[in-house]
């Protein structure tokens, strides 16, 4: 937590410091006001956003930093953290609505409904591919669900940027393809 004796400029800075989320963020952020994937993991675990679900894995945290990393710094500032928080809260609500028995996992076919509800229209074939990577025994845990949503969102953003006319198809040049997909 920030030392309470500092003077504060009026407006933006003071408002930020009163934001409860800023407490979690500043507890791990360095002088540069940015957090790494490890710091994000620590931050999210302490915030309790996962509730009764297991805390996020390093890989999921890395994906989350990468999803919002617009300046290619491989780190996250407070505005991005706030954005992430909102997105995560939404995803958690969706997940919980399908995890009726609070087992911490949802079934594959429920995952397809969840994605449709979030605006991702995926074919059964695409769902099969996703399930192969992110499920165990046909069920998906919360950390995997979030990892999956993060990848979907990041890949969809990349695709849309190359399909400005919204035709549903995009052109990729090889070097660009490699860098874009590896940046996820």
């Amino acid at each position, binding site marked *: 937590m920030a030392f309470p004796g500092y003077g504060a400029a009026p407006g933006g800075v003071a408002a930020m410091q009163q934001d409860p989320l800023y407490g979690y963020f500043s507890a791990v952020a360095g002088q540069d006001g940015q957090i790494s994937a490890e710091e994000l993991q620590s931050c999210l675990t302490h915030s309790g956003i996962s509730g009764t679900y297991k805390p996020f894995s390093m890989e999921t945290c890395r994906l989350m930093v990468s999803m919002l990393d617009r300046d290619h710094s491989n780190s996250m500032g407070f505005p991005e953290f706030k954005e992430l928080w909102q997105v995560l809260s939404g995803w958690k609500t969706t997940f919980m609505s399908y995890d009726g028995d609070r087992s911490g996992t949802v079934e594959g076919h429920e995952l397809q409904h969840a994605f449709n509800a979030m605006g991702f229209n995926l074919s059964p*074939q*695409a769902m099969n591919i996703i399930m192969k990577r992110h499920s165990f025994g046909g069920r998906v845990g919360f950390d995997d669900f979030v990892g999956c949503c993060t990848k979907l969102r990041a890949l969809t953003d990349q695709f849309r940027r190359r399909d400005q006319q919204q035709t549903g198809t995009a052109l*990729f040049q090889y*070097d660009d393809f490699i860098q874009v997909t590896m940046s996820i």
Partner: protein
Amino acid sequence: MSPAAFPMSLGGLICVLVPRVDKDRSGVISDTELQQALSNGTWTPFNPVTVRSVISMFDRENKGGVNFSEFGGVWKYVTDWQNIFRNYDRDNSGFIDKNELKQALTGFGYRLSDQFYNTLIEKFDRQRKGQVAFDDFVQCCIVLQRLTDVFRRYDTDQDGWIQVSYEQYLSMVFNIV
């Protein structure tokens, strides 16, 4: 590929190695057994994702491991990568830093921006040193190769461009990255 097909020295080496690696004498070398046989130059276990990638490359029967003859391929593959790694680890630190990685990948023919190398290291460096150890270097190269392979499958006229639908794009990359 039968043991007799190996050059004499490699065949002899395999005969000695396999019993040591196949700890439970099952005749199949599992992910765990291979992981224990490999070193990444640190005291941490070899990257299990890399182990899985390599085994799946040589496991012709989808049995989740490699038999005696498939293991020969695995060992040669790992040895080849060790030679490449040593070649590019110019300062002999046991790690490949950003510049050495740039030289390696440029040498393989990739054309990648300077900034992208920061992303690559962030993505693959499990030791969190800002440099890649042997196992993470191999995993990085394997993923780059997989992406290249899938791209080439769609680039039917081989002009370096593909046009894909949203569904195709997701199917292509989702499980590779």
